[in-house]
């Protein structure tokens, strides 16, 4: 079965065509600058095997981007997908499992768009376009929040009046679940531990968003993100944790303009806000490492970013108890040895002993970066959300197909 996985950004559409169950990537790429015209033309970077091509084409919305991607694939009959898997950031309170798309699912997806106003609406529009243009293709929806459906009440509850919280759905949802689950499964394989027995802390440190996940017996028991992706770690442009009184004070100063405050905290804060020069912590660390460049803002940005990760790492190692491993993943977690070192150094009491030489060398992933005697293993594992989505989609569609066959027989 060939499954095309779509990961929809606000102005981009990433796709990967994967043959399942072999998990072989057949094609992939990204439609860039989807939406209103910008200074540079919209384009699709399309890759089949080692051959990359760039196609300039107008894509005023995600539906047209989808159409163009499908056209590129349909040039080769062996690249025509059999099914579509969609990534959805927020599943709200009712999607506690990934689903095969139908009318009821679509209606619920439209209803919960407000919970993730930046991430969900473009994905929902894409799904609508797929249904309209390719009604015969089965579709699945894989939610970032589903893995965190197991977070217990003590961790998902905010200390608010119960009735009010229930009425508005004010609770922790957690995000990056697909990635956390994928790398945790890979870690279990690496350590030869059954996934259902794995205790771990997963550090998804992306160049944009970032979160930590506490995992007990293969299940998520806590995540640093909360009701929204704003809570928790310092991210590229998101503040992470902030005193709620300060958020309200800011709101009062902005004359109650929530959008403006949300924009400040989501798009102008974090590493960008602190450093004033870049939203990418790699730029900050690399400029600091250069001789002669001394900047207080860069130093503070690096310290605050790393310190927050370290504190949450300690928090989650404590609530997990006897952890098998700490997993670093995504852009920063996989490629920035200094970040891994900074947040684990001096954490020997927690059982973390890094082999610094191995850490500096990097090498191919997955890799165990801990010293032989380290009680808790320190792993770097490449995340692959597309493969994870393809796995879930394949499993869902195979089960559906088997059910149909049973009914027919």
């Amino acid at each position, binding site marked *: 079965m060939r499954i095309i996985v779509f990961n929809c950004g606000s102005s981009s559409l990433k796709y990967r065509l994967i043959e399942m169950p072999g998990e072989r990537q057949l094609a992939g790429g990204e439609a860039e600058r989807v939406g209103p015209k910008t200074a540079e033309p919209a384009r699709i970077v399309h890759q089949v095997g080692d051959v990359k091509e760039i196609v300039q084409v107008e894509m005023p919305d995600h539906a047209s981007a989808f159409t163009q991607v499908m056209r590129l694939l349909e040039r080769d009959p062996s690249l025509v997908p059999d099914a579509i898997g969609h990534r959805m950031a927020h599943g709200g309170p009712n999607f506690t499992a990934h689903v095969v798309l139908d009318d009821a699912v679509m209606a619920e997806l439209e209803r919960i768009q407000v919970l993730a106003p930046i991430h969900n609406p473009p994905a929902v529009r894409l799904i609508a376009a797929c249904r309209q243009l390719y009604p015969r293709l089965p579709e699945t929806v894989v939610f970032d929040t589903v893995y965190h459906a197991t977070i217990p009440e*003590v961790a998902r509850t*905010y*200390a*608010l*009046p*119960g009735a*009010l919280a229930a009425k*508005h759905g*004010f609770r922790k949802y957690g995000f990056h679940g697909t990635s956390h689950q994928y790398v945790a499964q890979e870690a279990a394989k690496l350590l030869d531990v059954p996934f259902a027995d794995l205790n771990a802390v997963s550090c998804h440190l992306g160049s944009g968003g970032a979160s930590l996940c506490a995992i007990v017996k293969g299940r998520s028991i*806590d995540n640093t993100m*909360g*009701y*929204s992706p*704003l*809570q928790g770690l*310092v991210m590229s442009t*998101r*503040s*992470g*944790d*902030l*005193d*709620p*009184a*300060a958020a*309200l*004070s*800011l*709101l*009062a*100063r902005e004359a*109650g303009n*929530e959008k403006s405050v949300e924009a*400040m*905290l989501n798009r102008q*804060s974090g590493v960008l*806000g*602190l450093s*004033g020069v870049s939203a990418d912590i790699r730029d900050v660390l690399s400029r600091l490492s250069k001789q002669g460049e001394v900047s207080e*803002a860069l130093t503070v940005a690096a*310290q605050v970013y790393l*310190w*927050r990760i*370290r*504190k*949450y*790492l*300690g*928090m989650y*190692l*404590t*609530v*997990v*108890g*006897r*952890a098998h491993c700490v997993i670093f993943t995504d852009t920063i977690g996989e490629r920035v040895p200094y970040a891994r070192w900074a947040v684990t150094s001096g954490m*020997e*009491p*927690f*059982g973390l002993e890094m082999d610094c030489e191995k850490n500096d060398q990097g090498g191919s992933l997955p890799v165990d970066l801990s010293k032989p005697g380290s009680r808790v293993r320190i792993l770097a594992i490449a995340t692959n959300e597309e493969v994870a989505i393809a796995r879930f989609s394949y499993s869902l569609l195979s089960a559906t197909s088997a059910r149909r066959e049973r009914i027919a027989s």
Partner: protein
Amino acid sequence: VNTLVIIPGRRSLRYAGFKANEESCMGTIRGWSWQGPSAALEEVAAIARATGLADGDLRIALRSIYGGAEFPSPVWLDQDNEKRLLDLTRHSPIHLSTLVDVAREARRVLPRAPVIVAFETSFFIDLPVRERTYAVSPALAQKLELRRWGFHGIFHSAAVAEANRTWRRSGQELPARILSICLDPQPEIAAVLGQCPITVTSGATPLEGLPGETNSGEIDPSLALALAGEAGLGPEGANTLLTSESGLSGLAGRRVRLDEVLAATAGDLVRVREFLLYRILAAAGAAAAALGGVDSVVFSGRYSAVAPVVAREILPRLYDCGALLCPPTHWEMLTTPLERLLAEIAMVQQAPESYPWQPMPDTGGDFETEFYP
């Protein structure tokens, strides 16, 4: 030296008198704020006179929740310091203007007694930059005068001194890595290296951090905005809800005390207790990571009597993951009440020889914009 400690709160005013180290009176005046401070302070002064406190060298000690960078240590409240204090009222309009009003009334009813103010934030004045900085632009942080503080510095400071004494007695030379857990209506955890705090659960205000009896503690900042917007409360309404109607009482659906929650073994409070213990465990883990392991644990606060409950539930888990380096049964408890700690501060300070003090005009706190409770 005699000391009269006065702690004005939102609902009640607590007072305690000490003749040298001996407690001579202690009490609470409820509903005092309705009548203003004059009546309450006259009542306190009458008690001070009746118990002989006012006969000797009397000092009056007040506690301020907030002193900012302006007050790194206790100060005798002269005209200059009063002005400096009033300059800070934008951070805590109700608390600081009430404090100054109480100080003036104290001076009026007991004119010969100098007034000293101790600040909860002083202990946290040198929190490391990495800890005290929020990840917003420096311009915004400056505009909001935003940084992280701790708000139980008087308890932490005394508790840590106790822990350090024990640590040194055991022959250790390196500074102790101390986990200081203050069990007050708004609980707070600090990680302290020797005498220096390096992390604390509270934030720019006492609202952030652990959940308290009526305050929510840490929440997603988006949620604060959603309460103001989607839930229709507006910024002030959301602030009131988060500070006065949430926390353990919000979860329980009725007004509860922290010690009542922690002591619960059956009934509806068990769920709230589990929630609170999880938050304390998580915060303790973060503090342990900041310290790189914990040598010593010390409890303090109004509800230090329930410290055994917290110790029993939390410390074995810290020990199990390796973060706690001493046996989980080895912990200390500072049972000294805040009133006595304040009296001790007043007693050791050199009193001013002359004390010219003219009250400033009315403080006129802006009650509509209380964002910093």
